[in-house]
């Protein structure tokens, strides 16, 4: 086939242009060190690079989260440390005050200190981190997750869920605590209890004369005794122990609408072993007789009475005048001391959780750093140009270009016209 001279020139021009573009790209890659990725040629690399970029972004965020959570947990650890210190002091107050020879003024001083300790726990419970986020509010976002009513009762208004932050794929670390878990969920021998109620109980216990929870010998001046039991309201539960020379016998019953006949029936059902007989006199009064000359009443507890702090009255059988009052035994120092220890251990456990969380965040940060390094390498592998290959190709293309130019020059330099004339 014969083509026109113009077309011949055009073809060669396009060839040189293409070679120039290829060379320019290769020279650019050689100069920058970055591969010139084309979707049509390197689509796998492009897809990998996209995924790697996303992963890098995510990993960087995880590292940032890890750093943030470690800072938060440090603040939380400090708060837990304060809480433990407060409890240590509370235990000291409890031990120092569990003394039935204390004067009322001395008790009052302990009460004041216990109230201050409660205020300090309350203040810690509402503590925030440097960003203003509550340490014990959970996910609720409330700045003050604990509220104290006028009667001193503390209630939690935050969330039961602790705030968690992701520090790696599949691993979330707590950023704060739910106050309900920390302050209202300490495990004691009789179930879970609130730390605030524990302090309240201590304060209440300091208000009660220790010796008032055990009666004197009810039969010291007569062969029967009359006790007046408290107002049950619609219904309440009562339990007490009657101690005779033969031993202690405990009684408990549910009482409906001040009908204590059920309680009397209960006492009389144990007469054979206790030696105690009871008669219900009406008006919440019970007459007690015993085969023993000694009868003491103790361990009086109740639940649901109209007056939560109600006490038992020992009456003169003849005049019905109150001879003696027996207070509830719900508050005893032994129990409070045990519960303070339990609360301390509860805080220690939670503090350990803080440490563990912090360690996990730190581990996650380190792991994420490693992942980030690997990712950077992978990205570099994809993005960086192979200089040797690029230079070789440049050389090849240069040779091709020069050969083509020489050929073209050679072909076009001579024409038939040169041979004419």
């Amino acid at each position, binding site marked *: 086939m014969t083509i026109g001279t113009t077309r011949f020139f055009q073809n060669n021009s396009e060839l040189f242009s293409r070679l120039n573009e290829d060379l320019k790209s290769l020279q650019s890659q050689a100069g920058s060190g970055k591969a010139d990725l084309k979707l*049509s040629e390197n689509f796998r690399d492009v897809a990998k690079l996209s995924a790697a970029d996303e992963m890098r972004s995510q990993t960087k965020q995880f590292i940032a989260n890890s750093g943030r959570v470690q800072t938060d947990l440090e603040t939380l650890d400090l708060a837990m440390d304060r809480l433990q210190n407060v409890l240590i002091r509370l235990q000291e107050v409890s031990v120092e005050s569990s003394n039935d020879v204390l004067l009322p003024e001395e008790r009052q001083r302990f009460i004041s200190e216990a109230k201050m300790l409660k205020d300090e726990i309350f203040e810690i419970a509402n503590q925030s981190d440097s960003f203003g986020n509550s340490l014990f509010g959970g996910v609720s976002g409330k700045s003050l997750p604990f509220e104290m009513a006028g009667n001193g009762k503390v209630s939690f208004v935050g969330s*039961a869920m602790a705030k968690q932050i992701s520090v790696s794929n599949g691993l979330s670390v707590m950023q704060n605590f739910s106050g309900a878990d920390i302050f209202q969920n300490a495990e004691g021998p009789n179930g879970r209890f609130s730390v605030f109620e524990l302090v309240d109980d201590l304060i209440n216990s300091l208000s009660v004369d220790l010796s008032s929870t055990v009666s004197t010998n009810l039969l010291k001046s007569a062969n029967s005794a009359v006790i007046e039991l408290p107002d049950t309201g619609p219904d309440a539960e009562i339990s007490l122990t009657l101690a005779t020379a033969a031993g202690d016998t405990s009684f408990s019953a549910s009482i409906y609408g001040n009908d204590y006949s059920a309680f009397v029936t209960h006492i009389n059902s144990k007469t054979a072993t206790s030696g105690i007989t009871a008669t219900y006199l009406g008006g919440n009064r019970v007459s007690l007789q015993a085969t023993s000359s000694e009868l003491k009443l103790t361990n009086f507890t109740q639940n649901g009475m109209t007056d939560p702090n109600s006490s038992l009255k020992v009456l003169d059988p003849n005049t019905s005048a109150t001879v003696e009052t027996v207070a509830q035994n719900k508050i005893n120092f032994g129990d409070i001391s045990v519960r303070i220890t339990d609360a301390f251990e509860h805080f220690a456990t939670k503090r350990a959780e803080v440490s563990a969380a912090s360690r996990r965040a730190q581990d996650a940060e380190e792991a994420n750093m490693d992942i980030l390094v690997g990712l950077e390498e992978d990205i570099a592998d994809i993005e960086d140009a192979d200089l040797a290959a690029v230079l070789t190709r440049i050389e090849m293309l240069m040779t091709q270009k020069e050969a083509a130019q020489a050929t073209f020059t050679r072909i076009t330099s001579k024409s038939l016209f040169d041979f004419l004339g």
Partner: protein
Amino acid sequence: LGELQNLDKLEDLTALKQQTKLQIATPIANLSATSQLRVTVGNTAHTFTLGSHSSSIKNYSDLAELMNSGVIRTDVAVNGKNLTFSDLGLLAGGNATSLVISSAFLGNSDTYSELTAGELSGTSGLLIPGHTDFAGLQVLTKEGVHLAGTPLSQTQIQSLISSANGFSEGAKYTASHLASGEVTSYLGAEVSRLTTRGDYTSAISSLAKSSTIDSNIAIGAMPIPTARAKMAAPLKIETATGLSLNYEASQGMMAGQISAALNDKISQYGINASAYNFVELYEIPSETVQFDLKGDNFTPARINMDMSTGNIQALVNQINTYSESTGIFASRSASNALVLEHRGGNDINIEAVSISGSGSIKVRQLDQYGEVINSPQNTASPAPEISTGKYAILGGQIQLTSPSDFELSTNDVDISVVQSEFASGFIKRAFDPDNSSTSYSFKTLKHADSAAIGAAGLASVAASSSYKFEIKGDNSNSSLVANIAGLNSEDLNGQIVAKKLASELRQNSVQAGIYGNTFSFADGFPSNGDTLEFRLGDQTYRATLNDVPSYVIEDSNVKIDGITYSQSEALKQIVASSNFTISGPEDNRIRVGFTEASGGFKLYAVANDGVISGHSLRLTSNNSSSNLNAFHFDNTSSAFIQGDEFDTTQAVNQVIARLNVGGTTTDITFDNGVVTPLTANGVTISLEQGSSVNTGFLKISIPNSVSDQDIRLSATANSANFGINTASTQLTLTEGGFNLSEYGSDRIQVSGSVESLASETISIDGLSGEDLIIISTGNIRPSILGAATSSTHNLNPREISAQVTSDDGRTVVLKDTKTGDYLGSRTLSSTNNFQFRGFDWQFDGIGNKNDEFLLSTSGNRQDDASNLVRFNRLASLSETSGKGGYSEIYSNLVTDTGFKSREAEQRLETTQAIHDVALDRKSEFSGVDLDTEAARLLEQQQAYQALAKVLSTAKELVDTLLRSF
């Protein structure tokens, strides 16, 4: 029947009964003026002759229209009236070939009789029997929580609660939330199921005895017993589904405590227990009254009130000052009576009573609607009463209610269980002790009970609802009864039902009114704004005169609006223009106007329809003498009370009515056509002539001169045949229905019944997007009506608490945290997880019994990187939600685009090559190759030169030749 998804509101889901239909098909051309339509309703055949209407009947739709509109009536009158289709409870529909007649009879012949046969022009119709059985609609959640219906039996549970019926895997049936009573709450939604017959109920005292056998009331001399009475034997409860339970109360437990304890045990059986304690102290003497009041309190509340002034409200107020400690609330029920309510149903103790004189206070227990409990103690004669030195222990009552029948017994003695029309029935009844009244409202179902004819003309449904209301009043042998039926479309409205029932009840009682003196124009006409105050029983109404035109007296004439009238004509014009506006507790209760009389006009005021309590309508003492004069009232004016007409030929001698004037009661005797006495305390008693011979009516005329106008005519046990029917209650129409207030110390009894094409209706409001399953367990295939509204949320607001309930830690019960209501339960799989409400609940390890986990929702999460986590999760596809997977999608997109790009480039190269070849080919033809052209040029040059040479040679030859010549 189906599933309702994301339900928020369900309005009146009803299952319809099927009416009896009669289908007749005979050629329309056969009908003539003598053709007869004959239907047998009950045992009576009714014939309708078409007559002249036959010519206008082109098809059966025309005939149906003539029958339904009452144009064609029965040939033979019944009780003086030719009956229409509507009177017989029939509705016709028709098309070109058939006539269909539907009957409103629903199995109860009180209102309508059964359609049993029919024929048209000799062609017998085909009778299609109706079905009036219960459809047994049941509404459950997908987890098997039964919200409305009747408790399911074990067999039904096993066959119905299955994934094939749309229930969740692991769904467990529970009837603990079954709607019973007016409204039940589930997940904060109000669930109600109403039936025409109402729920099954039983009232017992804390002694486990029927309230009508022993309502637990003890009255005696002080001291009060030290121990409380206790049920002698366990209470046995057996359900219709075969479950049974024995319950024994502990010593000292009262009705409220027993009901709470019972609820814990029997709610799972679909039975609900509640307790109430209403006690009325009545006929309290006008002396100083003292007593100790005990409810929740131990220290008695000492009540001390001097009642010599009759100030019952002061006593009520004093009792209520102790309500916080006693839990007992008092309300005034009459001028010398009050009602005590111990909310929760526990005992009311009245101790150490001291009354200054020798008086006593009567005591009776009321039920939850304010009626006297019909126990031997309450109905004893003399009535139980407390006096100085006595005590009264007044126990509450326990109401057990269930949508399904159940049995109660103690010591093998059955306790009555009955269906109550007021317990989840179409008639709602509520006692309001503070206002000493009981309210009634009526459920209507317009979409179910309206008459309807299908588009094709054949599927006709007759208006089938009926409402009956009965008041057991002063006549122990007779009741005041109202019965309305056949209400249609807009009339099917609770207020209209109440209005029609009230109107009929009043019409069946006595009439009352008052007249002024006759006056002429010369005597004067009251002015605009002049008022009169009336009293009807305990109600006060005020009538104000309006629109009296301006007039000018000109000599003996009167000019009104420029027209001159004689004085008598002018008075007529003024009366015609003027009117009264009435204000008072009930609209349109009394009617006031002027009526023409001999010599002029006189003012009249009447109680519309009648007065159930038998009271007179009287002027109050608040009317000024100037106003009384203006309206021409003086001591000679009189009011009246009159009964219905009766046969005056009755040969009896009986006390037919009782007249109370200012606290003095007079028996009115009828003896062979004569009533005695003819006067009583200034009031005239007469037997007036009736509308026909041998009929008459009793009339009480009350002159204005009688000092105490609080006059009441009441019925006796013999009144039924003498046109006197009253009850000690005052009916007042309200927006929602009507109220019946007690009058004096008498207490009425009421009953009611409703028929509807819908045997039951279920409504739910505020369920916030739950999925419900609707089941029918009845014997008929139901037609369902109702409206449902759905609700969806981006963030489900339901917070769930999961509690481990089994010892092995594998059973978890899930509850709505906010309400504590049961949602469902699951058993952990072998991989310690379960699916519930779209969540995969994965447990790390096994929980201990009673461990609780909380699923919280919070839209207020911040600073917790949760968005990042969500973004990350979106990268991969979630198998449970089907969402996410963008990473793979993007990767595929890149790959796809890469392939396409490469493909395009290759195609470009190929096309470029083709293009190049084409250009080359084109160039081959059109282009210029310089070498070739040069070569050709040389050829041409050489040829030219050769030719030139030839020519030159030839020329030379020629020249040579020529030269040779």
